[in-house]
Structure formats: C-alpha cells, structure tokens
C-alpha cells in the first residue's frame, strides 16, 4: 500500500471518532448541568411538551448516562 490510503482512512475514522466522542461528552455535560440546576414550579418547559415525535431519539433519561 502507500501512505495516501492509510492517510485517508486515518482522517475519516479519526474525524468521525472525535466528533462522536465530542457529541456524547457535550450531551453528558449538558444533562449534568440541567440535573444540577435549580428548578421552578412553573410546570413543564416548552421542550417537555414537544416530545411526541422521534421519541427514541429525543427521549428523556432519568440521570446522566451515555448511550
């Protein structure tokens, strides 16, 4: 083989891996901030009312966890 082929695979897999890890880390950090933030007794937020579709993708989770 030659260096071009290896470079192509490294760039693709490295970029996708980094992006995936970053997404999961940001999701976890945001969830942690929400769980730790003070809440009001104002009832469900706009987001809580907007979960009728794509339930699997946007599902609420009970605690800070990754998938």
């Amino acid at each position: 083989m030659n260096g071009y082929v290896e470079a192509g695979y490294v760039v693709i897999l490295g970029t996708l891996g980094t992006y995936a890890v970053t997404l999961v880390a940001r999701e976890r950090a945001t969830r942690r901030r929400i769980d730790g933030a003070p809440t009001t007794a104002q009832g469900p937020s706009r987001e809580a009312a907007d979960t009728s579709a794509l339930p699997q993708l946007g599902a609420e989770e009970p605690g800070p966890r990754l998938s």
Partner: protein
Amino acid sequence: MSTASHPARTDRATLALRGLGAVALAGVAATVWLGLFVTPPDEFMGNLVRLLYVHPPMAWVAFLAYGMAGLASVFYLWPRTRAERFDRLAGASAEVGVVFTGLTLVSGSIWGRPTWGAWWVWDPLLTTTALLFVLYLGYLALRRVPGDFHARARRSAIAALVAFVDVPIVYFSVDWWRSLHQAPTINLITHKTYVHGSMAWTLLLGFVSFTLVYIWLVAHRYRLAKLQDREETEGLEVALAERRAEAVAG
C-alpha cells in the same frame, strides 16, 4: 405526550441507540478490514482503489443528511406539521452532513494527489461540492443567529431548502460538464455498477455502515440540541422566578 412519563420506553430507546452504535462500529471495522486487507488491488488504480470503499460512502451520507435536513425543513414550514422537533432534526442532520462533506473533500483530495497529480483541481464536481460545504456552513451559522425561536427556525428552513438545490447539481455535474472526476461507481439512477465481487460487497458494506453511523450521530446531535433548548428554557424560567421573588420581597 412527554416521554418523561415513560421511563421504560426511554430505556428501550437508549438501549436501541446503543445497539445501533455497536452495529455501526462493527460494520465500519469490517469495512476497514475488508477494504485494507482482503480485497485485491485494482488493475488500473492499484491500492488507491481502497480509498473508494470509504470516499463514495462519505458523499452518499452527505447527500442523505442534506436530504433529511431538507425534508425536515419542509415539515417545519408546512403549517400542519410545524413542530420544533423538525427544526431540531434539520439542524442535527445538516451538521452531520457538513462533517461528511468535509470528509468527502479531504478523502477525495488525498485520492486525487497520486491520481491526478494535484491536491485540488477546479473540476465541476469538486467545485460544486466545495460550494455545498460552504452553503451548509452558512446554514449552521444562520441557525446560531439569536432571535425568536420560530423566526429563526423559519429562516433556517428556507435556507436549508435553498442550499439543497446544489445537491442534484453536485450529483449530475459529472454528466453535465466535462469532468476529471470519474462517473459514480454506483449510479443511483440507472443502477449500473462498475465494481464486482468482493470489491462490490465491501463498497456496499461501507455504504450501509456509514449510513448507520449517520443515524447514530444524528440521534445524539438531536438529543444534545433538545437538552440545550431545555437548558435555555429552564434557565430563563429560573431567572424570571428570581426576578418575581425580588419584586415581591422589594
């Protein structure tokens, strides 16, 4: 109905997403193994053909992502189906599409250097693909302009549809103009293929695996966007409650 009241369904969804991630990862690993170590070198391209097991799937996923963003934008603009989830889905899909478009350009450039003798040529396909990349970067920038949620979502949806016009131009550019770039390895219109045997199966596996990666990434990006929106809304509610409490105490 809120999914917050359905923890069992939530757990199933999370498990399904984990399963999808595992299958996608296994598929990508198999594609890399077959592409690098099992399939034979090409008669003309030699080992460089191995880049073609990952480069066309990058382009396919980018098209798919922009198609999904366009469809979600149509659903958002259509009054009967207008919902925040479609705006969020469009944003998530477009962001993942930009990543895959960037990888299409870079992997194509790495393939072009030894094949054409240049990292970049102003070929119609390359140029329209670079334009696609810039258009959707602009779309993502537009989404970050602060303002009323629905006004921002509406203009973003229109921008997504305008940007999508470039997708068929990219795909058909090799037919419409004289191009250095070869014709598609698998023609989506005529279903004609230019690879066979283990090379065809490896390419097909690459398409399927990276499509699963796309779904997994969009799902996580969607969840992140939803959490960010919720964080913003709850933060606003807390601030308002504090102001009200201060007003009552004062």
